[in-house]
């Protein structure tokens, strides 16, 4: 249903040269869409060179899918142009809002999980998908507040958006961990509420412990507790394209490739299990089809 891309990294400027010169063991790259909505120069040159060698997925931060502002059609046109140019296997953004009154906060603000917000987001996802001519994935945010108005849990809300709008889910396991710690939620219950067939990509990242709360900082290696949660995620969601995000204190590329190796190791048993399950499903389907054809004849 979703492309099984393997294991990827976020493509970041400090690594541009090395990525192109050394072709590291990375199956695919994720880029921040907005960083490449420019007219020329080095970013676009690198994007094209990387795209020639690897699959590149687009991950946006400015769709503001939950905002009460009208969708920025200029932004959407630029995203559509980038999608046409890059032909990414996956296009994603966040379940959040970041603009109001024409002002852009450049942050990922949480939504109240109400029926009203649900209907609002579903309609906007439908519009975006129609405009792009393809399905998108929405990522669960990390958050530091909850709203008194919320009627659904975050996982229920995200699942319902995916079902009603027929979009996918980008499951950020670090965000699940951070938000569950901050709000006293149960990560296993969170996973259980997410429909397996909607998860098209997984994010891993680091966070910082501020004592009173965890902050989603993307400036450290993935924490052990998040790796453990990732193991659970692979068991539940199977062979899902997985990548590590690092946006600050960016280490040498080799370090990130090694860290990605840990993701490969953790996911390996579940991937085998899911692949064999998939093969069995394929065989069963083929058998049923053959039987149906015999009966029809």
């Amino acid at each position, binding site marked *: 249903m979703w492309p099984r891309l393997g294991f990827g990294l976020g493509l970041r400027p400090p690594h541009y040269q090395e990525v192109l010169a050394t072709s590291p063991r990375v199956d695919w790259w994720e880029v921040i869409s907005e960083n490449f909505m*420019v007219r020329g120069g080095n970013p676009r040159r690198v994007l094209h060179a990387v795209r020639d060698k690897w699959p590149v997925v687009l991950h946006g931060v400015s769709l503001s899918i939950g905002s009460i502002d009208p969708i920025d059609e200029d932004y959407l046109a630029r995203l559509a142009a980038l999608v046409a140019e890059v032909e990414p296997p996956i296009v994603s953004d966040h379940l959040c809002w970041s603009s109001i009154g024409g002002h*852009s906060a*450049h942050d990922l603000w949480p939504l109240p999980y109400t029926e009203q917000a649900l209907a609002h987001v579903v309609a906007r996802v439908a519009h975006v998908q129609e405009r792009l001519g393809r399905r998108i994935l929405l990522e669960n945010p990390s958050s530091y507040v*909850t709203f008194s108005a919320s009627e659904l849990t975050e996982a229920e809300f995200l699942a319902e958006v995916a079902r009603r709008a027929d979009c996918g889910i980008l499951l950020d396991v670090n965000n699940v961990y951070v938000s569950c710690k901050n709000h006293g939620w149960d990560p296993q219950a969170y996973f259980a509420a997410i429909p397996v067939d909607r998860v098209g990509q997984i994010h891993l990242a680091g966070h910082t412990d501020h004592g*009173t709360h965890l902050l989603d900082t993307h400036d450290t290696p993935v924490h052990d507790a998040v790796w453990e949660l990732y193991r659970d995620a692979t068991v539940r969601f199977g062979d899902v394209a997985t990548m590590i995000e690092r946006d600050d204190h960016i280490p040498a590329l080799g370090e990130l490739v090694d860290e990605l190796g840990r993701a490969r190791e953790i996911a390996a048993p579940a991937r085998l299990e899911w692949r064999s399950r998939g093969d069995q499903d394929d065989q069963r389907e083929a058998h049923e089809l053959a039987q149906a054809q015999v009966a029809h004849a």
Partner: protein
Amino acid sequence: MHDLAEIQRRFYELVTAGEGAIDPGLLGGSRRLDVYAEMYVARLVDVLADDYPKLRSVLGAEPFQTLVAAYLRARPPRSFTIRDAGEALAAYLETRDDLPPWAADLARLERARVEVFDGPDREPSTREDLARIPIEEFPDLAIELVPSSELVPIGWTVDDLWSAIEDDTTIEAPTECNRTVLVWRRDLGVLHRTLDGDEAELVPFLARRATMAALSERLVELEVVGPETRLVELLGRWLDGAALVCS
């Protein structure tokens, strides 16, 4: 508070006020609104520090942070891309009587460098390209600046200030001047150069595309001694700098 629009407006007010105030009608059990308030400013301070490194250097980290916070209140970002968050900083600085009068010029220069960094691509012409053009076609030859270029008029010697900070040499307070700085992209790097007097008169023509004949006439009007020789000299300078496109 239950309405989505009302919730978003209230959240925005509280976060951008920067006080981390809590509205009990808005929030549930988790109330770390201060995290959002801090991140809103901190993220944009980081971005503007990258875009205006010399301004930050000369003002100091803390005053720069205070400046950005005030700028965000006065001119909240309106673009979907964080790249444009600082685009109105120079205009904002012109409204600030309490800051050095040259700060806006420095910001303008630094902003131009951001703009040309990822501006449109176009292959610059070379001396070899020009050598292939028959001499009789020279008067009608149209030349223009590469599209990733900007002319920045400055009223203070912030070009010298920029260089002093870059080269880590003695910084002197800018003085009043009347100069034009050409900012352009060569290969993947951004360069800038203060234009000579007659060059500053000609380059605006290049920004609009001009023929060699028109440039030559302009040098005559400026009463430049040896206008043809001077034009060839300037042409060589622009071509060697990869700043020119001939067509």
